């Protein structure tokens, strides 16, 4: 894909005749030379404006054009004339050699300026033919996605497939062209302040710089992002499946008063766990396993079966005593149940208090980390605020916004962060401890409930036996046997079902383990070999250029391009402490580097670089000549420079370099004769 600027025309209609200019551009290096305030910046801005890209400068809807284009223009006698109407026409060409012309009005209402007329041919260089014409919109919602949006059309013309990226406000949206163009077009006013800061934030894309660079360099990272997204979905799915399996295990054993132990409530990779899962029952204090209980019941049954069933008369005394015992046991169990129940509600209150405290501690910690980042970035530089002293009298101030006299001596920042971290760890521990306790208690509560039901049923039979005829066999004795038999059957079937259910956990644990490995692999290496290759090539070009441009702040070889944020770094830190001229040199080198690596590399660079007044005053003449030499190799790419450098000096600098030098008149917008 590529984009070339072919021809630009500005037309201004005033009350007394027309003004305008027309410039054509070829491939390779073009240098526009003109005096200061002659209108060359207006020409370059018009290119941006014609493409509907002024949103990259900020959210304003006013055209970024000079007074002469929108309000008042001076004629050759310095008389001021009102602008009635003005417009910009731009002819552009794509990689297939197709040409499109766009036309946009610079005057009129916002609504009128939101309209761009496109022609499917070179209207400016071959005006005699007729071309298909279309009206499209810019700067309105949907202009980058809908059929009638100009940026949809422009991206298609250039051959860019813009990816979907996460946004702050809603669903993912497209990466806008406004994010991309700051790397192709450097305007005079804010263009030389930095790299990342120029990617617009008002479009509410999350981490716009990273997304823009990843797209521009055609990284595989984008696919990684999608893959990570899929794995996250899979993770959620597994967590749900695990949750269901745990729930099933609980239901399977609910009816028998046993609770499953040793199953993690959240997925684990290791199965079976060190303490293998089992079914247990409690009497409120001690826990007993299901096998032990079945064994005991079977023994009891053998003893009972070996004694004959007594008649009611024989056993009245025995049953009366038993009944008393059972009733006492029931009372006691009910009391235990009540007290455990209120204990649990108290614990729950405790847990929610811990959770609240943790939430606010974590928020404080997050805010302190921000503060630390601000300090590391040295955001307030050498101000009194950074030095914590009074701006007026220079006395030391406490690092606090509380009233200075009353404020206690605040902890140093890092100490305070460590303190908060300790607190978070402590409360985390308290929370997991309290949750564990409450879990155990809840399971005990279920067991007690079942014990109560059992005792109630025993009491019913014992009373019934006492009321029945004297010589009939004791129903209580028979029932006792039946209960035991029935209980053994139910316990055994529940155990079987529980063990079958465990197989599911084994399967889930294997999947979970694979998933963790896949996620880990993604985390360990975000960039592919090919991605890193591109960044390494960018670095080579970058440091080679810095050396040529006479970068002096430190040894260019010490600079790397970060694999994390794609910015130049030194000793793991952002570049800082550079002279103003070296800052300009790094911006030149980075932008030209991007252009150079796209010559043979597989990137989404448009092969176009437009630089307005590249601040050669801040650097020196040698650097500027080196820069010109470097970009003169543009070949089939296009580099457009605008400068007010003295013409003779320029000619010397450009000697022997392939280029085109256009010297522009003192006033670029000239009066044109009426046709």
């Amino acid at each position, binding site marked *: 894909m590529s984009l070339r600027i072919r021809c630009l025309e500005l037309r201004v209609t005033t009350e007394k005749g027309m003004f305008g200019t027309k410039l054509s551009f070829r491939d390779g290096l073009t240098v526009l030379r003109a005096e200061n305030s002659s209108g060359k910046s207006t020409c370059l801005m018009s290119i941006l404006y014609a493409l509907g890209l002024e949103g990259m400068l900020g959210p304003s809807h006013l055209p970024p054009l000079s007074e002469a284009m929108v309000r008042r223009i001076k004629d050759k006698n310095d008389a001021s004339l009102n602008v009635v109407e003005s417009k910009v026409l731009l002819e552009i060409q794509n990689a297939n050699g197709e040409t499109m012309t766009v036309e946009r009005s610079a005057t009129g209402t916002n609504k009128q300026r939101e309209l761009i007329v496109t022609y499917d041919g070179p209207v400016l260089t071959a005006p005699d033919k007729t071309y298909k014409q279309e009206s499209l919109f810019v700067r309105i919602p949907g202009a980058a996605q809908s059929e009638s949006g100009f940026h949809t059309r422009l991206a298609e013309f250039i051959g860019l497939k813009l990816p979907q990226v996460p946004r702050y406000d809603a669903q993912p949206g497209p990466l806008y062209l406004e994010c991309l163009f700051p790397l192709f077009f450097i305007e005079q006013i804010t263009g030389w302040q930095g790299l990342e800061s120029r990617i617009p934030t008002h479009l509410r894309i999350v981490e716009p710089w990273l997304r823009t660079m990843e797209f521009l360099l055609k990284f595989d990272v984008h696919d990684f992002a999608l893959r990570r997204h899929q794995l996250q979905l899979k993770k959620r799915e597994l967590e749900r499946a695990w949750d269901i399996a745990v729930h099933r295990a609980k239901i399977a054993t609910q009816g028998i008063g046993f609770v499953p132990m040793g199953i993690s409530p959240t997925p684990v990779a290791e199965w079976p766990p060190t303490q293998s899962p089992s079914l247990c029952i409690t009497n409120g204090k001690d826990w007993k396993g299901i096998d032990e209980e079945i064994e005991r019941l079977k023994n009891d049954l053998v003893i009972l079966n070996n004694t004959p069933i007594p008649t009611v008369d024989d056993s009245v005394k025995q049953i009366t005593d038993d009944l008393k015992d059972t009733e006492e046991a029931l009372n006691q169990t009910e009391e235990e149940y009540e007290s455990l129940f209120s204990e649990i509600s108290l614990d729950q209150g405790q847990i929610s208090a811990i959770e609240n405290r943790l939430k606010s501690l974590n928020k404080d910690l997050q805010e302190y980390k921000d*503060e630390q980042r601000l300090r590391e970035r040295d955001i307030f530089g050498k101000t009194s605020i950074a030095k914590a002293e009074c701006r007026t009298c220079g006395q030391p101030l406490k690092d606090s916004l509380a009233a200075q006299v009353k404020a*206690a*001596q605040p902890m140093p920042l890092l100490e305070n962060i460590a303190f908060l971290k300790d607190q978070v760890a402590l409360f985390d521990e308290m929370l997991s401890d309290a949750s564990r306790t409450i879990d155990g208690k809840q399971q005990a509560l279920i067991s007690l409930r079942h014990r109560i039901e059992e005792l109630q049923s025993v009491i019913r039979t014992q009373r019934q036996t006492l009321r029945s005829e004297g010589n009939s066999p004791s129903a209580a004795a028979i029932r006792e046997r039946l209960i035991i038999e029935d209980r053994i059957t139910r316990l055994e079937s529940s155990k079987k079902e529980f063990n079958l259910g465990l197989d599911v956990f084994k399967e889930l644990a294997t999947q979970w383990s694979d998933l963790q490995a896949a996620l880990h692999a993604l985390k360990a290496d975000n960039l592919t070999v090919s991605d890193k290759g591109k960044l390494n090539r960018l670095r080579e070009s970058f440091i080679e250029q810095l050396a040529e441009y006479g970068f002096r702040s430190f040894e260019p070889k010490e600079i790397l391009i970060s694999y994390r944020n794609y910015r130049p770094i030194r000793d793991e830190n952002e570049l800082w402490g550079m002279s103003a001229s070296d800052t300009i040199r790094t911006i030149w080198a980075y932008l030209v580097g991007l252009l150079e690596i796209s010559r043979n590399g597989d990137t989404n660079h448009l092969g176009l670089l437009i630089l307005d007044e590249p601040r050669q005053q801040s650097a020196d003449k040698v650097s500027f000549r080196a820069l010109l030499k470097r970009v003169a190799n543009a070949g089939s790419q296009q580099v457009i420079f605008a400068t007010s450098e003295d013409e003779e000096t320029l000619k010397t600098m450009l000697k022997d370099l392939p280029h085109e030098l256009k010297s522009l008149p003192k006033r670029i917008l000239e009066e044109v004769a009426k046709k």
Partner: protein
Amino acid sequence: MNNQELDSILNEPFTFRERPTPISPNLRPVRRIALLLLMLDKCQGGKASHEQLHVLNWALRDTESQRALLEFLKGDGHPNKPIIRFDPTLDRATLFAEAEGFVAMELVGVKNGDRIDGQWPGYRVKLLETGKQIVKELSTMADCFKPERAFLSQLNGKFTQDKVKNLFNKATL
């Protein structure tokens, strides 16, 4: 401990040393001044009244108040007006920022020493060029002020002086 031991301890000279205390991050000037500049940047023309700033400052504190403010801004004359908490530390942060030349206090409602009809004089806080530079610098720090920035970006120019007046004005009910 017998009386003799106690006396010997009490007769020794005492030294009291103040230990540094952990404080809320909301009391740290650097963070709060940076936030103040970010808030101002979101107000029209980089200017805001004290009321406006206090409302934003209150909203930034937790997600519940953020939701309440956005809700209020969405519907005109919402019956459930949030209760705004005024925070004296914001005023101190503003004074620090003014001393440093990041912001200026503009007197409004006064012309040639006289009160403008229908207005009461008051101060407005205005973001100055040095302050704007810092906002610009902050905008490159993607991992800093994430939740705060996400909230501010939702305001979207909707947070005007008139809206704030409504918040405090019973007559709109």
